[in-house]
């Protein structure tokens, strides 16, 4: 058989798999926008179907129409040949359609099993209105064992890292014995190792005949895990292709509608003298211990490591929002203390936090208020704030960060993730920092906006600022940074040059003390 025939044969085999879910000509309009314009999606049993598109392409809206969160304006949805029209996600769950959400909606003060069985707590006996902790524990344990998740069902949610909470969410979806499972950006808070684990779970589900809809921005993942790829752009269906033979470039071209030649902008920064010196930094309440390193002017210093390896803690301890046990900070030859965030800002530090929604934005406030909150002191005339100065500062942010917004008075929550991130980056640049601590600066941001953030970062370094950047995405660290620190188990496992290292070397270091 020739190669071509083999391919055709493969396609035929795929085609023979029964169709589980078919969404036809789905339409949805919001005031002023056509969010979905005759979108089609067909998911076959025993396959992973990737759904791709930039933020705002309509992926989430399509899924919300499936789960009845939005009522669709037109089109039909069939599950195993029967037309369905779920009114809410509960109904969807009962019919075997589950979703693992990108934004975790969990009862953080309750424990794992309470979250797993929420809404369907097992009773002690039929008709007795008392829930059985024992049954719950056993059932949770069973699911976890099957999925090789190593978590005590009685752990309180808030005590676990985001990645483990994500795994619980996945286990929950599996526990419904669902036929169709939607994963919405499941790996955005997972480390490489946990991603492997997730892929094992997905492969297992596929082999059991489930249909998986996999939404992600990460090309490499998509190409590895999926059988078919559907690409959306501006609320329209663009293409559905066999994942075999697709390339990253091709996908990006379809997603963006134009060619993105490079994923990373050219590096223009020049490295100068040592600016920040960190010596024997240890945290009081986390396992960060004895970290020493230095960072130079104009340098982009990456921080790699598994989740929970102390990357975020490192930044928080430098910035003084976490309590230090010991350690010396030296800036430009002078010892500094960075006792709290205000002290650090005064010393020229800035911290872009990991969880934008939880600790970054003031969602209810507008762009101007969000942009100027850290530099209000500079916008005063006498004891009062000057609206003119506030406006000017915000204008500067919008211009230099290229923030797309109708006005300064727009509430920040109505912007896309990428634009929100730019506002926060702008907030920090208004404080005129010399050392920028960036924690996952491109998390949950689409390809085009990521490129812009990289440009901004490199531009800042080129202006002589020191950037220390934590990221879970290794290609990003390799593409943007000059040097990379690798954290493992709260300690500094090693330091590599971005130009002559490999992902394997970093992974090996990351596992050193884990």
């Amino acid at each position, binding site marked *: 058989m020739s190669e071509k025939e083999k391919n055709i044969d493969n396609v035929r085999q795929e085609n023979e798999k029964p169709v589980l879910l078919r969404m036809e000509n789905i339409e949805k309009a919001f*005031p002023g926008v056509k969010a979905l314009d005759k979108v089609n999606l067909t998911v076959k049993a025993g396959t992973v179907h990737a759904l791709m598109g930039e933020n705002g392409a309509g992926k989430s809206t399509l899924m919300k129409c499936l789960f009845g*969160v*939005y009522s669709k304006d037109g089109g039909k949805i069939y599950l195993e040949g029967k037309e369905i029209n779920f009114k809410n996600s509960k109904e969807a769950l009962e019919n075997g359609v589950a979703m693992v959400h990108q934004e975790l909606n969990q009862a953080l003060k309750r424990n794992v099993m309470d979250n797993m069985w929420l809404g369907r707590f097992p009773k002690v006996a039929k008709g007795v209105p008392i829930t059985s902790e024992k049954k719950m524990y056993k059932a949770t344990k069973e699911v976890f064992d099957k999925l090789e998740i190593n978590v005590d069902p009685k752990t309180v949610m808030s005590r676990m890292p985001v990645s483990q909470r994500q795994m619980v969410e996945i286990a929950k979806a599996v526990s419904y014995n669902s036929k169709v499972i939607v994963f919405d950006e499941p790996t955005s808070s997972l480390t490489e190792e946990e991603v492997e684990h997730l892929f094992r779970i997905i492969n297992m589900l596929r082999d059991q005949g489930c249909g998986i809809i996999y939404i992600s921005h990460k090309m490499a993942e998509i190409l590895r895990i999926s059988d078919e790829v559907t690409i959306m752009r501006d609320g329209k269906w663009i293409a559905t292709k066999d994942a075999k033979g697709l390339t990253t470039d091709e996908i990006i071209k379809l997603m963006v509608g134009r060619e993105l030649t490079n994923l990373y902008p050219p590096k223009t920064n020049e490295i100068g003298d040592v600016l920040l010196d960190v010596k024997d930094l240890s945290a009081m309440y986390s396992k960060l211990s004895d970290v020493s390193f230095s960072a130079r002017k104009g340098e982009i210093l990456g921080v790699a490591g598994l989740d929970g390896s102390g990357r975020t803690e490192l930044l928080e301890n430098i*910035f003084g*929002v976490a309590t230090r046990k010991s350690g010396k900070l030296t800036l430009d030859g002078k010892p500094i203390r960075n006792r709290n*965030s*205000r002290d*650090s*800002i005064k010393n020229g530090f800035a*911290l872009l*936090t990991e969880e934008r929604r*939880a*600790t*970054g*934005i*003031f*969602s*209810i*406030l507008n762009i101007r*208020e969000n942009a*100027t*909150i*850290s530099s*209000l*002191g500079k916008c*005063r005339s006498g*004891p*009062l*704030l000057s609206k003119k100065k506030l406006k000017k500062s915000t204008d500067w942010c919008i211009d230099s960060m290229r923030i797309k917004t109708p006005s300064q008075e727009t509430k920040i929550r109505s912007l896309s993730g990428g634009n929100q991130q730019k506002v926060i980056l702008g*907030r920090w640049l208004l*404080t005129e920092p010399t050392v920028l601590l960036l924690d996952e600066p491109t998390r949950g941001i689409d390809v085009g906006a990521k490129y812009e953030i990289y440009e901004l970062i490199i531009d800042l370094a080129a202006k002589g600022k020191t950037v220390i950047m934590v990221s879970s995405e290794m290609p990003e660290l390799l593409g943007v940074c000059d040097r990379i620190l690798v954290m493992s188990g709260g300690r500094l496992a090693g330091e590599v040059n971005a130009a002559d290292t490999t992902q394997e070397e970093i992974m090996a270091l990351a596992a050193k003390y884990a």
Partner: protein
Amino acid sequence: MSAAIKRKGRLSARLEEFKAKSGADKRRAIVDLLFNNAMYIIIVIAIIYIAIQVPAFLSTSSIVNIISLTAAKLPIALGIGGAIVLTGTDISAGRCVGLTACISAALLQMTNYANKIFPELEVMPLWIVLLIVIAVGAAVGLVNGFFVAKFKLHPFIVTLSTQLIVYGLILMFLMIGSNNGQTLSGLDESYTNFVKGTLFRIDGVAVPKYVLYAIILTALMWLVWNKTKFGKNMFAVGSNEEAANVSGVNVFWTIVIVFVIAGAMYGITGFIEGARIASCSANTGLNYESDAIAACVIGGVSFVGGTGKISGIVIGVFLLQIIFVGLNFLSVDQNLLYVIKGMIILVACAIDMRKYLARK
């Protein structure tokens, strides 16, 4: 002028937007508009109804009365508003007003009054007494703010405790000397004049001076909320405390100062109430906080946190007083008044929350 044109432009743009909508969306937009302004609509209907039933309701003297009452209740609401912006509350407000009213009255009794609580005391200068009661109010606010900010206690619990403490202090204060818990009256003329004296007359109806004080305080608080770093920080803390901390906002002091300012406002209210009521007892100020909280919520200072306007608070207090005065005009039973008050708060909160619910 230009602002008016701009506003008009915005209005017509909104009208255009509305015209472009489909039938179902139009209906939803109208329902939303009605619901979001339901409180105002209900109140306007109520005013029209009362005015038809009892025309005297809209007489000059009645309107001046409503404005005066609004002025009297305004400072306390301006104080509580800050606590609500922080997603908190302050139920110690009423008792603080009571304590400071009693202190003001006690220190400013006529020298020749028979039942004087401090018989030896000369009439003190007004400004010293004013400073004393502001300090007392601010001190209670400091305690409230400290426990909320330092130990992350819910403001409800903290102010519930201080409310009891302050009540105890009032009772103890009224037992000083031979007073034995009696009502404090016989106030010095300088005091009553300073508070209740005539500012000017409209159609022969005297407008009391405390209306002016309320206006000054409102302007001051407007500046603090909108034009100072502290004000911006307050909204940021109310919106997302953790983000505020990371952004370099001193969350601890922001919370403390919000409560201290609130306390100072109760002190001023107490000073005014002392003379306005002219006979202060342990029950002075009772439940004032419930009116103030209701006024804030009606005026759009939401318990969601991070939102609210001074103008909203003024309108809220004003509308609430209109309702109360109006119900009096209709000779509604005093006891029923409480029922109606409770219902107003409930409806106002429900309508307010509706705006912030994520629509699905």
